[in-house]
């Protein structure tokens, strides 16, 4: 049991990911304000992106540019660049989603005069 806790606290990146993810999820589920829901959604996306970047980190490694062109390549000396590239794409996707979400929020506000989920639902009936 203690070992398990110890193992969890050794991996602070996993712990951070779980906290941000659950925090975002909690906001998404419990808040009635639509913009707050969007913020929760963005936190969930960001937590996954954070996780993806964190698994590429290595102790004592440098940027993935070859230090020498003559020596054989030592993979342990360079950080893995691929997750960062994936992350860039995922950030773009996240920004696009948030943009559409904010546009929908604005349209809902113009139409119903409120951003509160319950009030909007009342006016829909």
């Amino acid at each position, binding site marked *: 049991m203690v070992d398990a806790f110890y193992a969890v606290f050794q991996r602070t990146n996993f712990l951070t990911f779980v906290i941000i993810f659950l925090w975002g999820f909690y906001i998404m589920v419990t808040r009635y304000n639509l913009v707050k829901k969007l913020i929760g*959604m963005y936190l*969930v996306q960001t937590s996954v992106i954070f996780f993806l970047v964190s698994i590429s980190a290595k102790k004592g490694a440098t940027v993935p540019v070859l230090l020498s062109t003559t020596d054989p390549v030592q993979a342990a000396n360079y950080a893995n660049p691929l997750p960062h590239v994936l992350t860039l794409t995922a950030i773009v996707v996240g920004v696009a989603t948030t943009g559409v979400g904010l546009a929908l929020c604005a349209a809902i506000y113009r139409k119903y005069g409120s951003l509160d989920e319950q009030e909007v639902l009342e006016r829909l009936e």
Partner: protein
Amino acid sequence: MSHQLPAILFLLPLFAAISMPVVCLKHRHWCQPISVAILAAMVPVSILNLHNVIHHGEVRYVFSGWAVPLGIEWVADGLASIILVLLSVLGLLGMVFSGPTSPKDLGGRIVHYYTLILLLISAMTGIVFSGDLFNLFVFLEVAAISSYALIGVAGGRALFAAFRYLILGTLGASLYLLGVSYLYAVTGTLNMADLVDKLPFLLSSKAVVGGLLFMFIGLGIKMALVPFHSWLPEAYANAPESISPILASLVTKVALLAWIRIVYWVFNASILINDIPILLLVEVAGALAAVIGASLALAQRNIKMIFAYGGISHIGIILIGISQGNPTGFVGGVFYLLNDSVMQAGLFFLAGVAFCQYGVRTIDDLGRIGKQAPWFTGSLIVMALGMIGLPPTGGFFGKWHIILGALEAGNYVSVAAVLLSTLLTLAYFARLFENIFRQTSTRSDAQSGEIPLSFKLALGVTSAAIMILGLFSSPITQLLLSHALPPAL
């Protein structure tokens, strides 16, 4: 040239989507004809691609010559090519249908509306062909973002439905991405073919199991599997009449196809979670979806809501078929997927005609349409036969193969689930017909008159396709058996 066909199929709608705002800036009425022309060009290309794949084997397309596993690979195998023919035909019909039904109050924004539809179609092409887990995620999101915007176009209730869809859909996409990053952390690759080589040694790893589960939940939200289905009915029922056939028939099916690819092509369906095979979990989820979706459909009064819940229950039936773990069930599931796409498109065409032509939204008003509408009533009868699964429609043969596969595997619970959902489908169509033929309303339908050619075309082709899929079910299932089976079966 022929090995470039997958890329051409993707680039046709993509370039049309990008150039649409420029080309149609001054001439708004060109949007719909240009979109129809692009989709009409996709149909022969996709058939050529299928012909090519059948005769010369699958095409592996590597972008800009970067070899696997460094580059991004697209795989045009039998399954993908067959689905792509379906996608382009249904997309074409949807475009033809959207001429007279597209939202009237958009003004200049109609250009963006058609841009989004073409973008949605090109993204779905990408999902079907993609051989790379991350690439699949990007296309899933492009398709999803286009659908959120397209649903929101209708305004009013649709805005709120689209917002809910956006929140849930993004959660699904994030979970899928989380699953992908788990697999990447374990194997160090994202390419499906490369994963097949590396995964067999890692199947007991908790990270692999967790990754697969996260992907299942993520794609489950995208395909509206039952516990995660709550976004679908509202979103599709309130979407503009012209776009709901394309959304309902293709978006969820394409997510389902992505799941089939991951579970059969990447994992070989061999993974155990606490000694429970993943296929059993999928089967239970499918059985629940089949029964719950159909029972919820019984409780609806809005026609589009009934059809949307019907679609949810059919997703369950397809999942039951593919999770039997034998070729009969798998082919039945894929054949039912083809049928279900056609039927969903047809049903939402019907709902669109009912609203745009006769002003009918709920089943209580259906009596107004009555007997003066031969096209409407005739195709509704064909769709109902298909949805219930009576011969000679394709729905019957799909369910037949699924039940045969389930009997072969000894899964009597899934047989019972398919039969129960069939009975419930019969019940909600009986309610529809009761309202149509009940001549209580004496109000004359003076506003109706002759229905436009594009409505006749959309209804006629989908009804004919349901019959043709049934009459030619044996060559089609043979084709699926010989070209679309995963390597494990």
